[in-house]
């Protein structure tokens, strides 16, 4: 039941302001955005759980997280390369 999926807001439904059209990998569904304290705008990413947006994805934090993970990956790759290079001698 912890199934939460990231989705991108594509449209706020003007007729029903508590609903927004959300896209997940080309698939679209109307999601209730009533639990968010700030109205999202198209282009925002949100976490979807059983038809509701639970939280807005903080893009800055997401980027920082990925940069960190990438740096670990890079450091590891560098180390492995160094290991390989030293083995060649």
């Amino acid at each position, binding site marked *: 039941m912890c199934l939460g999926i990231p989705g991108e807001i594509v449209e706020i439904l003007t007729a029903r302001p508590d609903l927004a059209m959300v896209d*997940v990998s*080309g*698939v*679209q569904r109307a999601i209730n955005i009533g639990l968010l304290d700030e109205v999202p705008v198209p282009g925002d990413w949100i976490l*979807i759980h059983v038809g509701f947006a639970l939280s807005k994805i903080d893009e800055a934090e997401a980027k920082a997280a990925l940069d960190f993970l990438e740096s670990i990956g890079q450091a590891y790759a560098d180390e492995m390369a160094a290991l390989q290079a030293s083995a060649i001698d």
Partner: protein
Amino acid sequence: MTDTEMYQPGTAHKTREEEVLDRIDRTRRARARVKEERITLSHGAGGKATQSLIEAIFLEEFRCSELEPLEDAARFDIDGVRLAFTTDSYVVSPLFFPGGDIGDLAVNGTVNDLSVSGATPLYLSVGMILEEGFPVADLQRIAASIRRAATAAHVRIATGDTKVVQRGKADGCYINTAGVGVIRHDIVLGADRARPGDAVLVSGPIGDHGVTVMLARGELDIAADLPSDTAPLNGIVAGLLAAVPGVRAMRDATRGGVATVLNEIARASEVAVVIDEAAVPVRNEVRGACEILGIDPLYVACEGRFVAVVDGAQAELAVETLRAHPLGAGAAIIGRVVADPPTLVLLNTAFGGTRIVDLLVGDPLPRIC
């Protein structure tokens, strides 16, 4: 484990966990029984419950050599001519969906069961069960679809039947089709013919049909630009058999999806099948819908895709042959057959870990075909 067993040269000392796994393995191989008193939707899902039902009731009652292999079609010899014979029923809801309708499924499904058995499909029967109140215009539409699909598949509707049941039964329209075809003498296929070293291929992206139908029901309020993949496979299969002599087995991945087919092959051949998650083709929309709903595309029905097991040395030739056909544009080598542990299907996750892919339990997508 006795002392002598434990110190037998070559016998690895089993951990407690391995003992438990062995015990479970023995239980899984035990005779199938149906414990339920009433039929549930699981019995129609194509997974474990369906299998148990078939083995415990139908195979028990109808047992004969032609039925026992439980392949997609029965194969037998009459006066020197090898025939394939199959039947399928279609109870899809809704009747009309993006990419096709129940009529298309009814023809393609049976054509495909014959094709993957190595037969050239020739004649179909069409049995219709109609609900009182069903619009004649819809019936006309379905009949036209059947005609178009039969023409495209080069088969003829040679015989049929019609029944009408009271309002409230048959959900509009149920269709049963049976089909017969001829197999060339040099074609030998079977789910029990996979051997270590073989390659496993799929003819295109998986899960399109099941997801399309689920979304078309309108209950989930999900919109996607996705059509069913229903299609006749006789052309692409014939092409494969002509170009690649080392085809061991083929199955179309309908109810229960690719995962079910792989498990059936692993079980029948007593081998392990290892597939790579990253190699399995899945459309973005199918992936998205499955992620939202928590369903695994490997278990979702297709109606125009098949799995082929071929001699490992001919894998590249096979996949190129498939890709040369319009229906095989997305074909891919998804894995291979190894000896151990037998009857298991293993998945190398994109993440780099391993897990098993077991037979479906329950019924995540009721009435897809």
